[in-house]
């Protein structure tokens, strides 16, 4: 409002400050344009410096510069590719970036639970992650989804080892034995490597959006080459207790499946 008064004196109808009720009306109208029923009230403190908002801010900056230059899809593809690479050296696989250029919406999800487990029957270490996909706005279809977890260079006794890191979808849980799992993605990583690891979980995300009751989370497992599983912390993977900027998160890309129609008031 201050800016208007300084630079736009010709606009008599915006020269004055908005009254409280006018301000509320404007807020309501802008929320309506953004397709939001109410003003969000995020709960966590210091959230702006967390890994997911930082990653999303990089995407935002890339999209904004692309809109400014208006040079089309080819440049956009390069921009996104650059982000994926700089975010994750040297571990990220370079994805087909078409879905990134086509995305109408990108959404990151915070990890709701992370449990270290050691199951005595099979002497198997694994970690569980859960994401709530029920908050996705209506009319959006998932085109791609990734689980991202940061790996520090390992200084442990596994320093010269190679790890096989595997991610599974939990299909069914039991109280007396291991859960039924579905293999989603896996990578071979040297212990000395560091950076973001990216796993493709597109099919699972689509399944969870349609059937939220089947969302029992993900399991991540680290094996050394002799087949033994090890604690993920020993492998240098950063979990909930690590720095905010290296917390694991999930990111999904969406294409609008229908035109957003504003309701008549």
């Amino acid at each position, binding site marked *: 409002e201050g800016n208007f008064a300084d630079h736009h004196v010709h*606009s008599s109808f915006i020269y004055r400050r908005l009254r409280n009720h006018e301000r509320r009306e404007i807020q309501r109208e802008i929320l309506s344009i953004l397709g939001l029923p109410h003003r969000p009230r995020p709960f966590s403190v210091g959230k702006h410096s967390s890994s*997911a908002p930082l990653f999303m801010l990089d995407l*935002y900056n890339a999209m904004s510069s692309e809109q400014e230059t208006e040079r089309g899809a080819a440049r956009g593809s390069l921009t996104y590719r650059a982000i994926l690479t700089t975010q994750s050296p040297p571990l990220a696989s370079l994805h087909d970036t078409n879905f990134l250029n086509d995305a109408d919406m990108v959404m*990151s999800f915070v990890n709701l639970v992370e449990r270290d487990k050691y199951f005595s029957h099979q002497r198997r270490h694994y970690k569980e992650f859960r994401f709530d996909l029920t*908050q996705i706005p209506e009319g959006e279809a998932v085109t791609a989804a990734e689980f991202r977890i940061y790996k520090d260079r390992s200084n442990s006794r596994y320093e010269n080892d190679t790890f096989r890191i595997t991610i599974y979808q939990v299909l069914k849980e039991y109280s007396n034995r291991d859960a039924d799992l579905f293999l989603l993605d896996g990578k071979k990583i040297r212990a000395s490597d560091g950076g973001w690891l990216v796993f493709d979980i597109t099919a699972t995300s689509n399944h969870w959006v349609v059937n939220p009751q089947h969302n029992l989370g993900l399991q991540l497992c680290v094996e050394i080459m002799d087949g033994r599983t090890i604690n993920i912390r020993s492998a240098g993977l950063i979990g909930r207790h690590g720095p905010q900027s290296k917390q694991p998160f999930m990111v999904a890309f969406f294409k609008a499946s229908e035109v957003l129609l504003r309701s008549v008031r």
Partner: protein
Amino acid sequence: AANSKRKNQNRNKSSSSQDSSRLSGPGDYNSSEQKQACKKHELYVSFRDLGWQDWIIAPEGYAAFYCDGECSFPLNAHMNATNHAIVQTLVHLMFPDNVPKPCCAPTKLNAISVLYFDDSSNVILKKYRNMVVRSCGCH
């Protein structure tokens, strides 16, 4: 008919505006006495001023722009006048009390991206089309 109306209108206007418009060429009809011609004006919508900086991460606001000004004959002085605007101007000149002048409104609109938290502290990056006026014209 339109020409004669226009001449009449100009004659009336010039008599009350100290003949300033009489010296003007067709593109300079916008004298100090008359309303400014249809054009783009800047208007910054500040999310910070709306008290939303806790949930909107970026941008801090956006230059939305708006279109304002008069759509008067000759319309070719304006950017992107539609055929309807030309027709409506002619009809307005014939029936000034019944038919208004064409509207000064956006002809091209740009998208913006907004990055924000939802109630669960998930982060949403969404592209909103038709948010920023790129150019104005007469409709």
